[in-house]
């Protein structure tokens, strides 16, 4: 039965083993990615309780119908109302979106020339360059941010350099400022921006540029009219790959940023670990996911289309 299936194969009969290939990872992801998410949603709709764990129970199946009744009766939007009433949360979201958006623009401005220059290099060198860009990406965020703590400290290498070059009179304060957060994000996410840009630019058909040149188009104009529009998929992929995680960034603002306004990742962390207010932490997380859902869906759509096209 199975041996001649592949010849016709629009709707193959799969063996038990083949079904497991789908079902095992499916079940794992459902149990440890989807279900936890639904639990966050439920807890964000629960009351805070002074107990261990600090919220009213998720689901009481033993109580049967009554349990289900009390499950729905227990749901409340109080936590969301609270988020709305305290400007701290609103400011935290705005700040996160602002920092992430501005960093993404900076990354694009810095990353595009690098990716473009990579495609101009000889083939052999390109492979090495890709590896050089990938390598720091796999070194932990924590260590790379720590490296910047070294550089940016008051009498650190950067201020010494600036003083030695006579660019400043007084050593400027870098740590605990928004500038440090931008430096940290741009530094950490640069590989995420360069790689997708490089991938699209590298596939670009050279003959299009030659055609433009033959028709008398100056090189800068050809770059603007041909290269830039054709690299749009790379720009979108890179921007999303940087923007989405940057919004929820925790390590960078925590170690490099100031304490005046927290980014949303820090707010979730504080609500959870310091204030032990799990329902509020969950509500903050749910709102964050809602904010990110559109970019995440675009990202998935792009990735899947990329895979199919290949």
């Amino acid at each position, binding site marked *: 039965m199975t041996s001649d299936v592949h010849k016709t194969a629009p709707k193959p009969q799969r063996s038990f083993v083949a079904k497991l*290939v789908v079902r095992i990872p499916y079940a794992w992801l459902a149990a*440890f990615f989807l279900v936890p998410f639904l639990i966050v949603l439920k807890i964000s709709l629960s009351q805070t309780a002074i107990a261990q764990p600090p919220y009213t129970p998720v689901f009481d199946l033993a109580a049967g119908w009554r349990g289900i009744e009390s499950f729905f009766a227990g749901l409340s939007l109080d936590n969301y109302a609270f988020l709305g009433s305290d400007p701290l949360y609103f400011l935290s979201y705005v700040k996160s979106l602002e920092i992430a958006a501005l960093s993404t623009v900076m990354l694009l401005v810095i990353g595009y020339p690098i990716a473009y220059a*990579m495609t101009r290099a000889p083939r052999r060198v390109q492979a090495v360059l890709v590896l050089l860009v990938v390598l720091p990406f*796999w070194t932990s965020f924590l260590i790379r941010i720590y490296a910047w703590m070294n550089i940016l400290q008051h009498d650190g290498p950067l201020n010494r350099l600036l003083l030695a070059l006579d660019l400043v009179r007084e050593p400027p304060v870098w740590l605990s400022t928004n500038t440090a957060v931008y430096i940290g994000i741009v530094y950490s996410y*640069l590989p995420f921006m360069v790689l997708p840009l490089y991938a699209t630019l590298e596939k670009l058909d050279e003959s299009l540029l030659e055609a433009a040149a033959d028709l008398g188009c100056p090189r800068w104009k050809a770059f603007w009219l041909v290269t830039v529009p054709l690299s749009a998929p790379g720009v979108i992929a890179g921007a999303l790959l940087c923007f989405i995680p940057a919004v929820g960034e925790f390590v960078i603002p925590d*170690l490099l940023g100031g304490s005046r306004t927290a980014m949303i990742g820090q707010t979730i962390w504080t609500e959870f670990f310091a204030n032990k207010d799990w329902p509020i932490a969950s509500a903050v997380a749910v709102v964050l996911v809602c904010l990110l859902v559109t970019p995440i869906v675009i990202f998935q759509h792009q990735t899947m289309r990329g*895979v199919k096209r290949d």
Partner: protein
Amino acid sequence: MRKLSAFNLATLVIGIAFLYLPIVILIVYSFNASRLVVVWGGWSTHWYAELAGDAPLLGAAFISLRVALVAASAATVLGTLAAVALVRFGRFRGRLLFAAMIYAPLVMPEVITGLSMLLLFVAIAVDRGFWTVVIAHTTMALCFVAVIVQARLVDFDMSLEEAAMDLGASPARTFMTVTLPLILPAIAASWMLAFALSLDDLVIASFTTGPGATTLPIRIYSEVRLGVSPEMNAVCSIMVAVVGTAVVAASLLTKLSAARGGPARA
């Protein structure tokens, strides 16, 4: 063939310098004899020797290695299955949700992944510790594995599999004797990357860990919050060296994989 223009060359040099200079400075400072991090006191391996006597730090490093070993292995198996399902199974019921669950964790803020995992473990009343961190890391890393192996399977020369099946091999046998050996380097590479991811993770581990399972990044984080110290410079330098070696090895393996049986051979 092509020559780099001065502008492009300068861009590349500055770009690479920007990426590497902070790490180089970190490593150089880790060999600084002076206790004051910013005052240069000559070369010394003093801080590395100091680390050898730091029992809690070594303990945390050992836990991190064990977590990374188990999580990377589990993630590789699950991620490879997921990649095969995505690439070779066409349209099956729930494929869209399946793909979504693979791509979403790649960009999901870690704080949310960590929080949701923790709430799951609390809801089902599991004691948090070594195994909860392993499960969390496996889930995160399996998505990366799936994407890498999937990319390899997509540009796989299908005629090799077709030949095996035409000669009467069952799909399972074809996979084991033809497909698997050819994608093995990609699988090995993704194992190493999963290992590096797990070894590096701070946020998800902080949420899902429990008493007695303090991983190395959690330990480092609690130290560096207090400021820069020479011991931390040394620990971080060692981690950079370990992860750097793993990634270079992984990329060489991927190259090997591409050289064997890619579509370019035809």
